[in-house]
């Protein structure tokens, strides 16, 4: 019996070792590609004149679609900030997805909106709108009220009402930097192939001072959990997505702030309601449709358009968020499994999909298991000291290296944090994040996978306290 247990331990430890080695090799390659891509992009971004883009007659109009469900606290702030975005021609469509609070009323009162008759052509499936609200004094703004049908349903309704060739999905609790939409559009205009997706960076606004829908003072949040998330977001958006974008194998673009080509999305069937992460699903559907048509296309990711969002402040909400993300990612890779190791999809099928399926979606189980089993194996003497050290180095040391590297890269390229103290604090948290926080997140993500396997596939609501408080600060 004892021998069999040791045999199983040896097997599991080998799996964990192979997983960590493969993961770290992939991350290293991705890091090198990202480093090159981010450097190139920042050089390009420094040269581009955004005023030129703003004045250019070829800059296409964009519809900003804001699905909102029970967002009465921050919706006015968000709309104010979006109306003030620097962009020549934009429409702002707020879709009130059956809110039970005063989300719609707040907008109606603040912008003196009145019921209006508009022609609604449902090109994508979605609940029929209950009403449209409009004020000629704010011609860019349109409010749609509908029954609750979920975020993808609200987005589909918004797309149906949009007239612009591009639309940008924006979360109702986000704040977008004034030039961000122009910066998001810049790579689209530069690209030689038709660009169907342009993704931006999402950063954490906790700790920042918000006034009239604008961030007026940048600061780090007070809590350790939020600070760890700040480091995590920087790493994700600087050491991952730019690399995949460079390889033309984008699989994830954050729905909090993402520009999409309207007709392509309609051709791909819009936002699906069968996963809880519709933003990942729509990217996969776009790849599928466009590859099937054999049309050239490009999906881009830029590191300078920044959208600020509020991160969960307590562990319970953070765990919910991560479980949902993991569940959605797994749902999406299972749904689009035929793309995995499929040469037809190029780098996406041969590299990005396997990475997201095996390392990002399922790998957390190995990571969580390793967190428990490695120290256990070592303590019971089933693992030699040298292997224990190697695994710890791979798990913690390498993660720290990636995190510190991404903070330095952020500072060198984007450099949003104004004080040296901010950078020093973030560097300290780059180390702390890998001791405790990352392991906790691995457990939360593993829970998401287990939820999927148990058949619990519902959306877990993440309650946030809202950034509105800061607005009055």
């Amino acid at each position: 019996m004892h021998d069999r247990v040791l045999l199983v331990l040896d097997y599991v430890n080998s799996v964990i070792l192979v997983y960590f080695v493969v993961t770290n090799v992939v991350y290293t390659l991705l890091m090198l590609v990202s480093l090159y891509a981010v450097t190139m992009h920042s050089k390009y971004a420094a040269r581009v004149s955004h005023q030129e883009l703003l004045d250019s007659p070829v800059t296409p109009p964009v519809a900003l679609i804001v699905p909102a469900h029970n967002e009465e606290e921050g919706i006015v702030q968000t709309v104010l900030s979006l109306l003030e975005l620097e962009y020549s021609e934009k429409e702002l469509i707020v879709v009130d997805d059956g809110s039970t609070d005063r989300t719609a009323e707040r907008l109606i009162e603040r912008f003196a909106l009145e019921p209006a008759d508009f022609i609604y052509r449902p090109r994508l499936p979605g609940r029929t709108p209950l009403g449209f609200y409009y004020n000629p004094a704010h011609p860019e703004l349109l409010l749609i009220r509908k029954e609750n049908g979920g975020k993808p349903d609200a987005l589909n309704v918004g797309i149906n009402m949009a007239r612009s060739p591009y639309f940008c999905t924006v979360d109702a609790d986000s704040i977008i930097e004034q030039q961000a939409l122009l910066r998001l559009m810049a790579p689209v205009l530069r690209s030689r192939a038709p660009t169907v997706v342009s993704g931006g960076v999402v950063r954490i606004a906790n700790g920042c001072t918000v006034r009239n829908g604008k961030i007026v003072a940048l600061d780090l949040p007070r809590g350790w959990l939020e600070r760890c998330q700040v480091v995590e977001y920087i790493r994700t958006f600087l050491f991952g997505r730019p690399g995949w974008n460079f390889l033309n194998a984008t699989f994830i673009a954050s729905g909090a702030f993402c520009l999409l080509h309207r007709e392509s999305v309609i051709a791909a069937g819009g936002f699906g309601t069968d996963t809880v992460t519709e933003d990942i699903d729509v990217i996969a559907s776009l790849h599928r449709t466009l590859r099937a048509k054999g049309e050239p296309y490009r999906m881009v990711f830029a590191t300078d358009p920044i959208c600020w969002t509020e991160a969960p402040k307590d562990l319970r909400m953070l765990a919910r968020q991560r479980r949902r993300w993991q569940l959605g990612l797994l749902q999406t890779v299972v749904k689009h499994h035929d793309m995995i190791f499929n040469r037809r999809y190029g780098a996406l099928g041969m590299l990005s999909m396997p990475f997201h399926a095996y390392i990002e979606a399922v790998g957390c189980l190995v990571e969580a298991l390793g967190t428990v089993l490695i120290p256990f194996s070592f303590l019971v003497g089933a693992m030699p000291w040298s292997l224990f050290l190697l695994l710890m180095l791979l798990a913690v040391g390498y993660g720290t290296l990636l995190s510190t590297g991404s903070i330095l890269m952020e500072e060198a390229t984007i450099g949003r944090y104004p004080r040296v103290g901010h950078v020093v604090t973030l560097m300290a948290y780059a180390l702390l994040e890998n001791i405790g926080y990352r392991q906790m997140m691995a457990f939360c993500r593993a829970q998401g996978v287990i939820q999927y396997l148990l058949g619990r596939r519902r959306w877990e609501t993440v309650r946030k306290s809202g950034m509105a408080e800061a607005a009055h600060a």
Partner: protein
Amino acid sequence: MPKWMKNRLVIGLVVFFTAMGIWESRKPRFRPMYQQGAALYQQQRYLQALQQFDRAYGVDPNQVAVVVMMGWSNLKLRRYEEARFYFQRAQRLDPRNPEAQLGAAFVAWHTGQRLDGNKAQRLAARFPDDPEVRAMAEAAKKQEAGGRR
């Protein structure tokens, strides 16, 4: 065939875990050799035990248990230099390993080197039923007393 069995994600995972299983099963294991060596050691067939431990050492040179037994076997065969090497290596791998500490102390005792009295006492406390350890501790005590005089 159930639908999930055709899923590439599932197929990939099955392939990976099967490949790992095959790799693991083909990997030579130190444990059977170690256990054989331990059995021979119990039978006081130290030379044959050493050969088995040597094979186990070839498979996993970082296994402290194997390294320690290499030390004990060499000590029993009065190959003190080899025994010292293995006990020192075991201590480097796991500085807190009591067997490695004990082995190193025994080598010192057998080769007439000076013993660390405190360490010997600690080892005697740790292995109270072993008369040889007690004898070594006594010898260390005497050495210290002699040294003070």
